[in-house]
């Protein structure tokens, strides 16, 4: 891949009260590529990705979007660069309906500047029809929806606004097997459209099915990055658990020093 990376994060660090949650992590993503971000709970994957989505402000390091230095200090900035995120917690406002969640922060307005609820619901019906054709509960607050339905609202929100970069944080954690397969299909479809996707998961099988490359983190540091074709699942497990970087991977600062 010689094209310019869509996203390049260089030497990103953030500390919370003395704990280095992310420590000089570097990561890149190309158009139409799925990069799986793996690691234990607390390895720093979600934190790293929240820096990209603007939820956290980094202490140091730079972010480049298509080769240009990007200023991402809050979620609004990230959205301006076409970065959309599906959070592990889904980040839905439980008390309002699907359309209100879909357009939260980017409402459609009538020509008098008031909310155009009818248009928003119509658009919500369109995009939800694509993701989850059986979904019909547009009038209800999302707290009344099932886990899968809530998930599809969160996904709809991420893809509706023509994302260039999609971050999926444990997108299948709350889903059954059939819905998980649906998400897999969706990832392939979006990838074909040239969208770059960060897939955060601790399910190594999921990641191997969908990702082109994996990046493993441990204790806030990048252990290594590898094409999924160059490493085995066991080797990746070794990276996650021991921080041992196999020959097929490019080692990062967190790789265990190898006894030659």
């Amino acid at each position: 891949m010689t094209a310019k990376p869509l996203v390049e994060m260089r030497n990103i660090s953030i500390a919370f009260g003395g704990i280095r949650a992310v420590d000089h992590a570097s990561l890149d993503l190309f158009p139409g590529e799925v990069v799986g971000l793996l690691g234990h709970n607390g390895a720093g994957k979600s934190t790293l990705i929240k820096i990209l989505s603007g939820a956290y402000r980094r202490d140091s390091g730079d972010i480049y979007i298509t080769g240009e230095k990007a200023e991402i200090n809050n979620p609004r900035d990230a959205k301006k660069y076409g970065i959309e995120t599906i959070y592990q917690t889904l980040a839905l406002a439980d008390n309002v309906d699907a359309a209100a969640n879909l357009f939260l922060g980017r409402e459609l307005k009538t020509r008098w500047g008031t909310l155009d609820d009818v248009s928003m619901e119509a658009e919500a019906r369109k995009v939800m029809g694509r993701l989850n054709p059986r979904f019909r509960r547009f009038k209800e607050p999302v707290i009344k929806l099932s886990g899968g339905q809530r998930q599809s609202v969160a996904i709809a929100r991420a893809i509706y606004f023509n994302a260039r970069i999609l971050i999926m944080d444990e997108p299948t954690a709350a889903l059954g097997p059939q819905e998980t397969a649906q998400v897999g299909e969706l990832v392939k479809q979006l990838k074909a459209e040239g969208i770059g996707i960060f897939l955060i998961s601790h399910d190594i099988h999921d990641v191997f099915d969908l990702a082109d490359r994996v990046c493993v983190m441990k204790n806030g540091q990048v252990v290594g990055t590898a094409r999924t074709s160059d490493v085995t699942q066991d080797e990746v497990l070794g990276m996650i658990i021991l921080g041992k970087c196999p020959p097929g991977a490019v080692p990062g600062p967190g790789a265990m020093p190898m006894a030659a």
Partner: protein
Amino acid sequence: MSSVSSSDDAPALVEEGPVARFFRATELDTRTLGMVAALLVIWVGFDVYSGMLRPNEGLFGGSFLTPRNLWTLSVQTSSIAVMSTGMVLLIVMRQLDLSVGSMLSTIAVATGVLQVFELGPWLGVGHPAIWIIAVLFALVLGALIGAFNGVLTAYAGIPAFIVTLGGLIAYSGVAWALIRGETVAPMDKTFKLIGGNGPLASIGPFWSWTLAAAACALLVLGLLNGRRQRGRVNFPQRPIWAEAFLAVCGSAAILGVTAIVNSYAWAPKIIENYAKENNIPIPPGVEDRTGDAICMAGDAVVRCNEGLVFYTGYAIPVLIALAVGFAMTFLASRTSFGRYVYAAGGNPEAAELSGINTRWLTVKVFMLMGVLVAISAIITSARLDAATNSLGQLNELYVIAAVVIGGTSLAGGVGTIYGAMLGALLMQSLQSGMTLLNFESAYKDMVVGAVLVTAVFVDQIYRRRLK
């Protein structure tokens, strides 16, 4: 959350009874209807009970359901009702303002001092600009105090409960310091009208009917517009009969209330003075002590059925409260500001991640609360025709009680403006009713407190059954 629901296929439709179908078709909120029913029960109860003690011309023989009492009730409710609309948004956003009572007295006193000691001597008492300057001053002061509360809460990270508890104590100190416990009076003569003070502070039957007709027209237009909008994108619509039902009931309510305020006549003495001042001849007639009008029986002015009479119509503070309610409902449901307030109350983190600046939003809501407190301060001091630092005492509790009775959840995310205003009316009905029945104030407080707790309890049961 724990219940696994499969209503995608809406199997409930088949078993739906006529009552359920009625409520679904009209999209009426059963909770609000319950509140209206409770209100009517309280009203009828007071009227019947007062009729047993001392018969009067009320609907059930008492003195509660008389135009005079209902008109007074509407004026008394307006101050709390105005503030409750702002408190709804604050509580929906998981904030709280305990300082509204003290803010009210501070603003009222400061505005009173400005009018009486500064503007009066400077521009001359009764200058037409005084009331405008006073009102603007009050609104700006309210916004500033609100912004102060909001900044401390949102940017300094102090919990709103603490910030405004401090405000409750501190602002009442400010009000005291401004006038050292004295009473500032009288207010400017135009300013007074805002409080419903005096016969000219109501708009009279003609304008009341005009306004009522306009409100009915707006209601019908609103229903039609909603129908057209939903038709544009082929959404399911209410059946025609349900639309007609809403239009008829809504219009009947508007016209009914207007008929009531339009049948409350000025007191005979006031009519007589007004006639003398404006050289209006008082026609001769036959004395009737139950009549609303005045006439000349020989040389004496007496009450009679046929003669000179003026009816009050809507009082200005009531119109202000209605306008505020209308504007706040619009703000809460039709603008992105309102949408953000509700979303931030439902899930503050989600709102933040959606790119909403929740801190600045918090400051804005506190400022709005401050402006509404200023409106109430104007109404209250204008109604009393004086400003003292005891104005607004305990108002924070009445406002919060009204909001909670009105169905706003203290957990945030849920609440309506009209619910809170109905809650304010309910609270005031209880208090006025018990005053009418000569309850001791200690017992009044006990009843009001008990009603607040009971209302929330009933609401909890209702919500649990709904799930």
